[in-house]
C-alpha cells in the first residue's frame, strides 16, 4: 500500500479527516483538485452559530483544528442569544476568508505524516469481490493504494452551477467540478442522489452607502473557540443590517419563471432552513420585508457578503433587486449569487462510524453525506479520520452518543434518517441540549480525545488543570455562606441567609449578580470556568429533568441489534418496516425506533421478540 489513508477533498471535512488520521500516526495523502483552495469558505464568511458553535468546540475538544483556525482569523465575535438561556447560547465569529484558508493550508502542510497531492479522484480501487476499498484512481490515470479512503467531496462531485439560464460544470463559481467519481459510485451501486444549495451575491463595499445601514457590532469581550487558547484577540470589523422591500419582491416575482428553482431545471433538494430569497418571497407573500445581514469577507478585500439574499435568478435581475435596498442604490455586484447542484451519497448507507456498509475501509464525510455547513463537515471529518485510523489499528470505531455530543446527534440522525434535504445541525435536534452547552464540550469529549490519542499532551495537561480548578470553584462557592450582613446589604439575599452561595445561585436573581462581588475568591479563576460552575449549579434540576426525559432513549439505545438481523423472518412486522429496517440495518433498538416509517408498535414487537429470544 502506498498510504494508510487517502482523503479526497481539502475542504472543512477533508482537513479534519486528514489531520486526525495523520496525528494518529497513519501515513496520509490528501488529494485535492487545487491545493490553493484548501480550507476555502464557499459561502458565508463565518464559523459557529447556534449549535454549530457547539460542534466547533466539540471538534476542538477531541483534538481537531477548526477552533484554532477561526481563533487565528476572527474579525468579529458574538455570543449569540445572550438574552436567552445557556443551552441556546453559542459563539459565532466572522472570519477573514482568505486568512482562514491560508491558516488551514498551513496547518495541513505542516502536519507530519500528511502529504498534499494535486489531482482529481475519478474512481476507487476495490478488492476483487468489491467488499473492500484498496485505493483511488485519478484523472491523470494514477492508481494510488490505501487501506482506507475518506471521500469529502463537498459540492464538487458532478457539481453544476445555475445562474438564471446560465449553466456551468463547477463546484464553486469559477472552479471546475470533479467529474467521474459520482458516476463511478452510481455504477458500483451506491445510493447517489442530487442535492442543491445556494449562495448570495457579493458586492463591492465602497459602492454601498454603509452609513445608511444599521450597525451590528461585535462583543467587546471576545472568547476563544479553542480550549487551547486563553484569550482571543485580533482586528475588528462590524457587520451591518438592511432589509428588502416591496420593490425588491416585485422584481423577484416578475422574474420568478427565470429561476432554475422554479422552472424545474434543478431537481436536487435544497435546504428549507436556508431558503433562497425567491423561495421566501413566494412562500411568505405576506411579509413586506426580509432581513439581510451585510458581512465583510475579510480584511484585505472590498467584497461584502449579503446574508439572506441567496438566489439563482439571472445576474441582471439580482443586480436590479439588490439596488432596491436602502444604501444599495449604486451597489456594484462583484460575483452573482448562484445555486449549485451536486452528487451526494445517502448516508443511510453508512454505519455510525461513517464507514460504508457496502465497502469496508471507505468513509464519507461532509456534503458528500448530504449535510450542509462548514461545522457539520468538520465534525464528520474528524470522526471519519479517527475511525479510518482506528480500523487500520484493528480497534473498534469511535461512536459518540446522542447524550454526549451534538456530533453524536448529527451522525445518528443522518445514518438513521438519511438525508432528504441538506442536513443542518439544530439545537432542537439534541435531546440533551441543556447538558451539551458549548462550554462543556471539553468536559464531555476531551477524555475521549485522550483515549483515542488525538488530544495532545498540552491539551491533556490544560484539561487536568481546569478540572481541578472547577472543583476548587465549586468548593469555594459552597463554603461561602450567605450572612445577615449580605441580606442587609441587598434584600435579594434575604431568603438565602445561612445557605451556601452555591445553593443561593439557583435563585435567578442571585445568579444574575456579579459573583466576584459576593465571593472575591472567584476572581482568581478564568471567567468561563466560574460561569460554567454557576450554570451547572443553577440548572441542575432542569438537566435532571431532561435526563429523565431521554432515559427511555438511553434504554433503547443500549439494546443492541445485530447488523445482519433478518427482519423478514419476524412475523407481524409491517412490510414497510421490514424494508426500512433492512435498508438501515440499525445497530440498536433506539436507532431502529428513529427510522422513519418504522411504527412504534413494530419497535414494541421487536423488543418483545428480543426479550423472547433471551
Amino acid at each position: 500500500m502506498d498510504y494508510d489513508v487517502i482523503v479526497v477533498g481539502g475542504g472543512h471535512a477533508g482537513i479534519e479527516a486528514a489531520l486526525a488520521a495523520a496525528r494518529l500516526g497513519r501515513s496520509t495523502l490528501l488529494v485535492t483538485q487545487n491545493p490553493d483552495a484548501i480550507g476555502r469558505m464557499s459561502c458565508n464568511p463565518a464559523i459557529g452559530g447556534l449549535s454549530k458553535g457547539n460542534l466547533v468546540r466539540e471538534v476542538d475538544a477531541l483534538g481537531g483544528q477548526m477552533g484554532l483556525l477561526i481563533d487565528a482569523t476572527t474579525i468579529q465575535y458574538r455570543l449569540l442569544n445572550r438574552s436567552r438561556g445557556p443551552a441556546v447560547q453559542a459563539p459565532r465569529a466572522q472570519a477573514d476568508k482568505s486568512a482562514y484558508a491560508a491558516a488551514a493550508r498551513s496547518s495541513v502542510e505542516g502536519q507530519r505524516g500528511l502529504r498534499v497531492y494535486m489531482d482529481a479522484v475519478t474512481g476507487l480501487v476495490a478488492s476483487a469481490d468489491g467488499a473492500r476499498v484498496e485505493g483511488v484512481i485519478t484523472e491523470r490515470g494514477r492508481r494510488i493504494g490505501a487501506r482506507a479512503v475518506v471521500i469529502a467531496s463537498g459540492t464538487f462531485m458532478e457539481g453544476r452551477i445555475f445562474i438564471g439560464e446560465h449553466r456551468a460544470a463547477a463546484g464553486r463559481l469559477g472552479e471546475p467540478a470533479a467529474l467521474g467519481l459520482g458516476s463511478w459510485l452510481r455504477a458500483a451501486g451506491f445510493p447517489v442522489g442530487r442535492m442543491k444549495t445556494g449562495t448570495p451575491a457579493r458586492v463591492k463595499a465602497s459602492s454601498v452607502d454603509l452609513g445608511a445601514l444599521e450597525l451590528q457590532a461585535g462583543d467587546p469581550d471576545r472568547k476563544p473557540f479553542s480550549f487551547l487558547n486563553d484569550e482571543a484577540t485580533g482586528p475588528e470589523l462590524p457587520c451591518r443590517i438592511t432589509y428588502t422591500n416591496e420593490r425588491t419582491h416585485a422584481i423577484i416575482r416578475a422574474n420568478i419563471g427565470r429561476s432554475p428553482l422554479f422552472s424545474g431545471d434543478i431537481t436536487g433538494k435544497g435546504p428549507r432552513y436556508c431558503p433562497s430569497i425567491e423561495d421566501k418571497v413566494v412562500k411568505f407573500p405576506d411579509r413586506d420585508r426580509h432581513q439581510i445581514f451585510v458581512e465583510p469577507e475579510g480584511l484585505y478585500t472590498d467584497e461584502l457578503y449579503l446574508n439572506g439574499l441567496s438566489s439563482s435568478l439571472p445576474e441582471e435581475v439580482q443586480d436590479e433587486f439588490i439596488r432596491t435596498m436602502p444604501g444599495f442604490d449604486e451597489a456594484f455586484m462583484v460575483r452573482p449569487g448562484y445555486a449549485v447542484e451536486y452528487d451526494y451519497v445517502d448516508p443511510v448507507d453508512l454505519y455510525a462510524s461513517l464507514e460504508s456498509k457496502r465497502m469496508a475501509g471507505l468513509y464519507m464525510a461532509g456534503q458528500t453525506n448530504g449535510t450542509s455547513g462548514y461545522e457539520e463537515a468538520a465534525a464528520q471529518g474528524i470522526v471519519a479520520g479517527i475511525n479510518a485510523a482506528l480500523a487500520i489499528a484493528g480497534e473498534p470505531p469511535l461512536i459518540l452518543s446522542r447524550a454526549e455530543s451534538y456530533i453524536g446527534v448529527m451522525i445518528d440522525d443522518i445514518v438513521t434518517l438519511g438525508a432528504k434535504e441538506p442536513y443542518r445541525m439544530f439545537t432542537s435536534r439534541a435531546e440533551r441540549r441543556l447538558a451539551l452547552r458549548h462550554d462543556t464540550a471539553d468536559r464531555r469529549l476531551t477524555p475521549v480525545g485522550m483515549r483515542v490519542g488525538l488530544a495532545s499532551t498540552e491539551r491533556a495537561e490544560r484539561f487536568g488543570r481546569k478540572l481541578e480548578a472547577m472543583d476548587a470553584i465549586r468548593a469555594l462557592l459552597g463554603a461561602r455562606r450567605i450572612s445577615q450582613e449580605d441580606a442587609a446589604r441587598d434584600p435579594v439575599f434575604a431568603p438565602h441567609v445561612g445557605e451556601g452561595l452555591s445553593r443561593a445561585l439557583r435563585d435567578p436573581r442571585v445568579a444574575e449578580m456579579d459573583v466576584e462581588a459576593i465571593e472575591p475568591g472567584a476572581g482568581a479563576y478564568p471567567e468561563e470556568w466560574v460561569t460554567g460552575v454557576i450554570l451547572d449549579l443553577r440548572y441542575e434540576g432542569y438537566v435532571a429533568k431532561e435526563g429523565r426525559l431521554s432515559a427511555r432513549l438511553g434504554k433503547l439505545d443500549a439494546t443492541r441489534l445485530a447488523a445482519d438481523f433478518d427482519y423478514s423472518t419476524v412475523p407481524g412486522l409491517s412490510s414497510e418496516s421490514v424494508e426500512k429496517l433492512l435498508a438501515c440495518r440499525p445497530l440498536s433498538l433506539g436507532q431502529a425506533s428513529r427510522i422513519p416509517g418504522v411504527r412504534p408498535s413494530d419497535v414494541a414487537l421487536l423488543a418483545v421478540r428480543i426479550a423472547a429470544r433471551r
Partner: protein
Amino acid sequence: MSSAVRAFEPLPPRLFARYRSGMAKGYLDVEDDIAALATPPGTGALAVVRATGPGSVDRLARAFSRPDALRAAAGYTAAYGRMLGADGRAVDEVVALVFRAPASYTGQDCVDVMCHGGQATVADVLDALEVVGFRGALPGEFTFRAFYNGKMDLSRAEAVSELVSARTSEARADAFSRLSGGLSRELSAIKAMLVRAAAAFALRLDYGEDESPEDIVAELPILTKARAACEDLADSYTVGRVLRDGAVVALAGRTNAGKSSLFNRLLKEERAIVSSAPGTTRDYLEAELDLGGLPVRLVDTAGVRDSVDPVEAEGVRRSLLVADGADAVVYVVDATVGLSAEDQAFLAANPGAVMAWNKVDAPEAGPVPAGWIGVSAATGFGESGLAASIRSSLLGGRESDGAATARIGTARHRDALIRAGSSLGDAIAAIESGEPVDMAAVDVATALEALGEITGETTSEDILESLFSNFCVGK
C-alpha cells in the same frame, strides 16, 4: 419502548376466565396451543370455546369424532362432529369453525368450537381440550398474540380488550369508535397543538435573537390551550370508565322513604331481586341495569337512621360506606313527611346527590322544593327525569349524545394526558417566572413525550416541519 412492557399487562379477564393456574407459562410462549371459553360464563343456548396456536387444528382433531374432516378443513369452513372426552365418549355435539393462519384473529391457526351452552357442557369440552394438550389461555393472551403477530397495533389491542368486556351497546360504540379512529382524531388535534407549541420553542432554540421573535410570552396562549385540551380529554376518562366498568349508583334515604319501591321501579321489575347480595333487607340490595345506555349497578342501602338495633346500625354504617364509594347517590325523601335533620345532615355531607321527592302524587305530599325531582315510585311519575339526572351526575355534565365524541377508556391514556397537562403547566410557570426559553422547552418536550405514549413518537423532524411551514426563517 414502554408500550412494549405494557403489552404484558393482563387485559380484562372476563373472556378468559378458566385455566388461570397450571403450568408457569407466559405470554411469550407463543408456540403453545391455547384455549378458553370465549363467551360469558353462564347458561345460554350456545357457548364458544376458542382455540389457537400453530398446532391447534391437529391437536383439536385428536379430541374430535371426525379428525380427518377437521384436519382437511380450509379457512373459514366449519366441521360438524362430537367432542370426545378422556374416555373416548362424546361429551357434546359441536360445530368447529376453522381459521387458517394468517387469516385469523391471532394470526395463527384458530378454531372456534361452538358447543351447547351450560356450565357443565363447557367444562367437559374444556377438559377434553386439556387432555389433548391445550393450555388454558392467560388473560388477554389471544389479543396479545394478535399484537405479536402484527394483526393489530397496541392502541387497537387495548380497544379490543375493552370491546369484549363492554357491557352495553353504548359502551360498545365507544370502544368501537376508538378502533375506528375516533379517539385518534381527538388525540391528533391535541398533538398538532403540542407540535405547534414545540415548534415555537424550537424557533427560539434554533435561531438567534436577531432572527427570531424574542418574546416567548407570546406562546402562552397556545400552551394554555394545549394544556386545557389535555385536561379535558383526561377528564373524559370518568365517562369512558363509567361506560366500560359500569357505575355504582346508591339509593339512600331514611327508612320508609320508598327506596325499595323506587329501586324496583328503576329495575322495571315487581318481583323480588334475584341477585340480591347476602344479608338481610336491613343490609343492602343491588342489581345491574341499563340506564339509558349506561351500565349501572344500583344499590339500595338501608335507611339512614341512628339506630339502637345493632343489626340495623351495622346496615346503616355499611350503606353510608356504599354511598361514599358510589359514583352517584340518589337521596330519597318521603314527600308526605318532609325534610328531617338527618336528611339535611346527609345532604350536607353529599352535596352532589340527586334528590328525589318521592310519593309526590300523594294527597298529603308537600310541594317539590327547588333542586328536587318529584317522583312516584308507585306510578312511575318522574322516572325519566330521575334517570336523566343520574346520568348527568355520572357524566359530570359531559352528556353523551350517543354519537362519535371520543373518550379515553384506559387509565394509561389518562395518566399520559395528565402528565402532559402538568408538564405544560410547568412550562407556563417557568415562562411566567422568567426562566429562559430552553428550560421551558424541556417541559414542552416532556409533554410531547407523554402524549407520544398514546399517539406514537414525535420526532424532531415533525417539529422542524411545523417550524418551517409556520415561520419564515433562515438567512
